């Protein structure tokens, strides 16, 4: 997302707000640092014009906030949607989680967002400020050094293998749609599949052992939008299940979560983005997506509103259990 889109987004959103078309806007604003751009709700056009940030750090998927915001806000809620977020937007609509009429969506073009972990690693020391240039970041470090980092080196993995940069939902598109990424989305899953069961177990054991159960992955996930999560529900009986000796609770948490979002996950990659331990959680979901594609034909959750997901629809051509075959 370039500067030009940010200017356009600020102008257009403020305009809509002044005209009374939208009562508030779901967008991003700068946090503590330049790379620390966080989701926020703007209520005045002045705030929008001053603080709205639409750049390579506007990574957060805002669609999930519509559930709570449309319940409490007056009138229509404005939202900025990157192409990948628009899939989550549609998926939530499919699940009737908010009323489409109550939302005005501004589509944003996107060429990728920055993986801040990767950026910090690449810079190697504290970041004081960042200037976004054409195709690169000009980073001033705490020691006063200025480093130029090409964007292509710090794009998030989810963006390099982005499923589509063509937004699937918006009322109005700001700027031009950008060309799709061409890397294979399932290459990493295939790598995991090629491991032996023991190797794979060891891989996940290693990754998931770092989990601190902060619940960030669940809280950010647009598919994890239950009124009350089973993990927070004392009557579900989940929390009374003590971990057995060779297992650990976190593993089950992530696996259960992957099952719960299977067929509904749009592969937005937010789970891995927010994980403070950098666990590649999205790979669990992506494995499900790959399997669903091979069993039931290509399916992208959220590609269209109301599409019947393979896991909750039945056709006579579905593979029989036990045949286990590919379609």
């Amino acid at each position: 997302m370039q500067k030009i889109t940010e200017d356009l987004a600020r102008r257009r959103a403020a305009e809509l707000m002044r005209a009374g078309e939208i009562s508030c806007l779901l967008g991003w604003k700068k946090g503590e640092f330049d790379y620390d751009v966080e989701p926020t709700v703007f209520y005045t056009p002045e705030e929008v014009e001053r603080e709205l940030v639409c750049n390579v750090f506007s990574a957060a998927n805002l669609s999930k906030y519509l559930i709570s915001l449309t319940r409490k806000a007056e009138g229509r809620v404005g939202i900025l949607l990157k192409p990948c977020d628009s899939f989550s937007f549609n998926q939530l609509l499919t699940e009737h989680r908010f009323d489409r009429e109550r939302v005005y969506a501004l589509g944003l073009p996107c060429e990728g967002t920055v993986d801040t972990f990767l950026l910090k690693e690449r810079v190697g020391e504290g970041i004081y400020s960042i200037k976004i240039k054409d195709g690169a970041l000009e980073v001033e470090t705490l020691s006063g050094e200025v480093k130029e980092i090409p964007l292509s080196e710090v794009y998030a993995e989810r963006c390099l293998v982005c499923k589509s940069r063509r937004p699937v939902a918006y009322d109005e598109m700001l700027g031009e749609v950008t060309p799709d990424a061409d890397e294979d989305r399932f290459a990493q899953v295939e790598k995991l599949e090629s491991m032996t069961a023991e190797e794979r177990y060891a891989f996940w054991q290693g990754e998931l052992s770092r989990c601190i159960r902060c619940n960030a992955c669940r809280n950010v996930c647009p598919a994890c939008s239950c009124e009350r999560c089973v993990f927070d529900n004392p009557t579900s009986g989940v929390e009374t299940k003590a971990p057995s000796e060779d297992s650990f609770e976190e593993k089950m948490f992530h696996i259960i979560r992957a099952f719960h979002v299977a067929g509904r996950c749009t592969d937005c990659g937010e789970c891995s983005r927010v994980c403070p331990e950098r666990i590649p959680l999205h790979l669990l979901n992506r494995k499900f997506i790959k399997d669903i594609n091979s069993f039931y034909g290509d399916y992208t959750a959220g590609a269209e509103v109301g599409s019947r997901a393979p896991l909750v629809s039945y056709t006579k051509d579905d593979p029989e259990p036990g045949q286990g075959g590919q379609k």
Partner: protein
Amino acid sequence: MQRIGVFVCWCGSNIAATVDVEAVSQALKDEPGVVFSTNYQYMCSQAGQDLIKQAVAEHGLTGIVICSCSPRMHETTFRRAAAAAGLNPYMVEIANIREQCSWVHKDIALGTQKAIVLGRAAVAKLHLNAPLTPGETPVTKRALVIGGGIAGIQTALDIADAGFKVDIVEKKPTIGGKMSQLDKTFPTLDCAACILTPKMVEAAQNENITIYSYSEVESVGGFVGNFDVTIRKKARYVNESICTGCGLCTEKCPVKNVPNEFNLGMDSRRAVYIPFAQAVPKVATIDPDYCNMLKNGKCGVCARVCTAGAIDYKQTDELIEQKYGAIVVATGYEPIKLDKFDEFAYNSSPDVITSLEFERLTNAAGPTSGKLLRPSDGKHPHRIVFVQCVGSRCAAAAGKGKEYCSKICCMYTAKQAMLVRDKYPDTEVYVFYIDVRTPGKNFDEFYRRAAEEYGVKYVKGMVGKISPQGEVLKVQASDLIAGRQLHIDADLVVLAAAIEPDRSARPLATMLTASMDTNDFFTEAHPKLRPVESPTAGVFLSGACQGPKDIPETVAQAGAAAAKVIGLLAKDKLTSNPCVASVDELMCNGCSSCERVCPYGAISYVNKEFRMPDRTVALRRVASVNPAVCQGCGACTVACMSGAMDLRGFEAKQIIAEVDAICK
């Protein structure tokens, strides 16, 4: 706290031989909440049930666990006993220690240990049981019979006779099925048409019966007593109510080379046709694959010659929606394809035919007007070889054919061989067999007559190879009794092809949620005690769709299925199962997953105002279950991510309690 009684059944020696029943009842005595535990020889007997009633009264039991056979077998029995003792019938849990324990184990120690664990799980579940009350649903007093062969016709006639409306759906342009293609029928040799066609006419004229010919079942919804069925009435391009069946169009149609499926392709028909003279309904049908008018708009001869004006080239498929209380499956059978049996030269020689083709060749209404002539040159065959078990009783390892016995072949082969010898005494007839199976009234006498009086040469042994050579078919076979190879030059070979369920049966079973065995025959609810009911309530089985059957058996089963349907339709209300889904609205996301997986359409959505945890009031979309429609299959509870959907009597916490008890 529940006061639980445990009753361990010996089932004679069925359970007691592999499970130490005394040890089980002793061990379960120590389970929490168990105040009484005993064992008895036959818990389902009157004395056993009295034991239960007595214990409920004496010990103030609030719930009972029966360790016995599968709940499929006696759950109802024990629920009734509990109700008679003043308990809610849903405070009964069955631990299946027979089918799932004693019958599958040989070691008494292990079997006993497993029985205790299963009993413990049932006790753990029972602690969380709540009394449930069944509701009532009305019954639509109309039955659907799928398939219009002899099975379907007989079932429909019997149901109609009891005063209920019946619809027959038949995919072909006429009812009659396979029987209408047969010549004579064993063991009495009456002609099939003579005994079938009056029934066809009777069905057509019965005011309680509606025949949807050239139609197929498109979709089935609902449940016992209240099925919603959509029937696709295919366009036959002829107005059925106007067509008089005069047959003029079928004579004038210029397209003459259409393979005639009624005669199994051994002669041809026109593009507009009536399958056979006694067809019901006797109306013409235009074959859209061959009709010039429908293909390229050039012709229109039939419309011109039809004095009734019945031809309608613009006719389209019609969808008929109808409610039924009961459904009878009578989809019948097909002979198998013989593609994999190259050794019999079926595909390479026209003089190697199937038994059904032989029926057409000897039928007076068939392609040769009943004269037995070789398909290749129209000559009279002087030496005929019948081969039995073609594709029947095949080893699974052979990778072709069926493992089962097709049951009808021995008898019809005896009939065909006998009739050939009767009509053409100059013909030499061989029958090659593995075994001759003739159980049935007057069946063995019939076969012996063929062999002894009519001189049919029965040879025990199989034909290894048939090679067409010039005008003859070189048959190489073994005579197992004489222990030698036989080489016969035959003029005609008749293969008794195995029979398999009609191909339409599998998708239909899916629509009906009725189960099938590995051979695609419909499964009965109990192989001995409920042979005409499918495990799906309200779906009944008639004829060969359930397994290979001859005509007498089919007709008997058709009548039995009709009796079951009548029994159902005679009721005004059905007691509904109280073990239905229920939703916790506070947890429901309104996402529609449950609605999408519900096979019965029992779930709808309502918008309701809720007080949220942050003290605001929000309008939320939540699921609502119609308990009269819900069948308690539990699909929704699995689809629900948040766990808002639960199944009464099988709540998630009950299942977890069972699992915990087993893993303890």
